């Protein structure tokens, strides 16, 4: 008689597990998303989420995909790579998603590449710029945005045609993003014949970078190239003024220096951001079809204009949708094969086509903060205005 009492909870447990496993199938298509909704990079994760939301609404307004509604299954990696890895496991093993978009940072993305490869799930990378995420040889990885090498090349191209400075200092944070950009710029600068007078690597989230900036100042570079996230970008520029570091050009590998919050006083560097150059993947004024509409929708949703991180997320979802549509299936292998061949001539983020490594050859712009706004200054056919060079010295600014 006792055996029957044990049987009932066992059967109940099995039913629950079975329901959990199969509950996802049926009438929606679930796409997994890993991003940093909280933690150090929460501002960028939020930008991702807004971009994804706009794309999702558009897709569902057109009837969804394969006749079903599309849902996004978010996992918050809290800006930590180990959480991103856990997230992929949860999304794939528990929620049974067949394709994943993300993560935000180069560090988290690098961590999840082996996991998606092992689980055979296609990954579309929206924003991670470290080149090592597409250099593992994994056939499951696709990157929408341009990478660190392109950042360095675009910056040097701009500099060569705008004053041709000869000395450079690199200041980079010490995770994957910073290291990758430091490496790319070091190699590219050497090839271009510039003199690398200083290269500093720093531990992020410190209160005091003044000694570091003093070291850079003592080497007297004409150009400083930063690879920083938002919080440090703000601290660095504030303290650059205190230390009176006056290179002719403040340049950067985007990210913190290209965030929507960076030129604002309460969440960024405020007036200390003025005149800084940054690489950019996109601006609302871009001439691609749909760019202006995306800007409008984003403004309606959040009350602010988007930086490129938001549209990269948007583009990632648009590409995923195009793949599902083209493959007429949501099955991972079919999606992967479709992504390899995909050739979208027109998206608000420009054309999308992946090369043999899974890299999309996306053009890189150079912007400058002028009067608190980002303005494209390079290349000439995309430029809105002329760059202000050399950067006015701190003591001469109001």
């Amino acid at each position, binding site marked *: 008689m006792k055996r029957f009492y044990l049987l009932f909870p066992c059967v109940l447990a099995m039913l629950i597990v079975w329901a959990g496993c199969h509950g996802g199938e049926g009438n929606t298509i679930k796409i997994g998303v890993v991003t940093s909704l909280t933690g150090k990079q929460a501002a960028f994760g939020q930008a991702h989420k807004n971009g994804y939301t706009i794309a999702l609404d558009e897709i569902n307004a057109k009837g969804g995909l394969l006749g079903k509604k599309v849902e996004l299954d978010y996992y918050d990696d809290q800006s930590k790579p180990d959480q991103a890895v856990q997230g992929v496991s949860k999304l794939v093993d528990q929620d049974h998603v067949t394709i994943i978009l993300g993560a935000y940072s180069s560090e988290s993305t690098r961590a999840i590449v082996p996991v998606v490869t092992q689980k055979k799930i296609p990954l579309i990378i929206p924003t991670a710029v470290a080149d090592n995420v597409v250099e593992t040889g994994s056939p499951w990885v696709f990157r929408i945005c341009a990478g660190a090498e392109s950042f360095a090349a675009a910056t040097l191209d701009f500099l060569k045609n705008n004053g041709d400075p000869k000395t450079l200092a690199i200041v980079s944070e010490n995770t994957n993003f910073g290291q990758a950009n430091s490496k790319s710029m070091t190699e590219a600068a050497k090839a271009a014949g510039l003199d690398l007078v200083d290269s500093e690597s720093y531990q992020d989230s410190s209160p005091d970078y003044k000694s570091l900036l*003093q070291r850079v100042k003592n080497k007297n570079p004409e150009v400083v190239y930063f690879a920083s996230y938002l919080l440090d970008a703000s601290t660095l520029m504030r303290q650059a003024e205190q230390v009176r570091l006056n290179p002719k050009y403040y340049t950067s590998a985007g990210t913190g220096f290209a965030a929507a919050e960076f030129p604002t006083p309460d969440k960024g560097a405020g007036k200390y951001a003025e005149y800084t150059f940054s690489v950019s993947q996109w601006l609302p004024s871009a001439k691609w079809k749909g760019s202006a509409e995306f800007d409008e929708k984003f403004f309606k949703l959040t009350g602010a204009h988007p930086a490129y991180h938001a549209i990269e997320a948007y583009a990632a979802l648009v590409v995923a949708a195009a793949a599902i549509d083209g493959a007429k299936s949501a099955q991972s292998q079919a999606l992967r094969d479709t992504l390899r061949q995909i050739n979208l001539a027109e998206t608000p983020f420009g054309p999308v086509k992946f090369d043999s490594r899974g890299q999309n050859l996306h053009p890189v712009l150079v912007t400058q903060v002028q009067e608190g706004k980002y303005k494209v200054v390079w290349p000439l056919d995309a430029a809105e205005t002329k760059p202000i060079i050399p950067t006015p010295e701190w003591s001469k600014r109001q």
Partner: protein
Amino acid sequence: MNWFYSTIQAILNGLLTGALYGLIAMGMALIFGVMRIVNFAHGAFLMLGMYATYVLFQTTGISPYYSFPLAGAVLFVIGYATYMGLLRPIRGQVDFMVILLTMGLALIITDGVQLIFGADYHQINIPLLSKNIRIGSQISINAPWLVSFAIAAVLAVALYFVVTHTMFGRAARAIAQNRYAAPLMGINVNRVQAISFGIGSAAAGIAGALLLPVFYLFPEVGNQFKLKSFVMVVLGGMGSIQGAAIAGLVLGVVESLTSLYWGNEWALAVDFVIFILVLSLKPSGIFGSQRA
């Protein structure tokens, strides 16, 4: 010539930062000196002081440089309650239990704050932040750091005065010397220890308030300062509050100079090099207390 001025500047910056470090370390040293408790929740208390000041600033606009006494008061109450409610009942048990308890407390506080406020980073912007005092053309001092240096210095002197010249201070030192003889002298050991814990925690809370304008706020902000505090308390001599204060200044200057001459990443390593050197060569620290 530049390196000369850069060095002077780095020393100055180091002293300014070091004063704040020293304040945090003094709190920990007081607690350790009187009660032999290593408070692993010290960093979490600093973080609570920061959040309290932040919330006050967001709702009323009062600058942290005026509202820091409130952070001190809040943390005094929290510290007193922590001692009376959590630590006193396990007095007499193995030290390891006390460490575990304070570590657990730190985790609960940090995760609790993360639940309530989220893991996002916050910063505040006050006009003083953009004011710099320039000495000649080569040296500049950022005004907020100078204000926090002044406040920390006054508090450090006040704390030293309390410990050496008041009845409470004498009671605390008596307990530190001999915990068993102290009650025989008519000292209410529990109350004095609770007050000491409260004062030590208040120091952390005030340091948090002073740190808020020049840094940013997130639930785990206390961790890096907690680690540095251990180094300073050991460097200054376990339980010596004047030692901890001096050690704070020393650490600040050493970090700043290391950062100038070898780079920012070495500055962190140097903290622990000092830690290991002191423990292996002169465990009793600068002020060589006999209770090494």
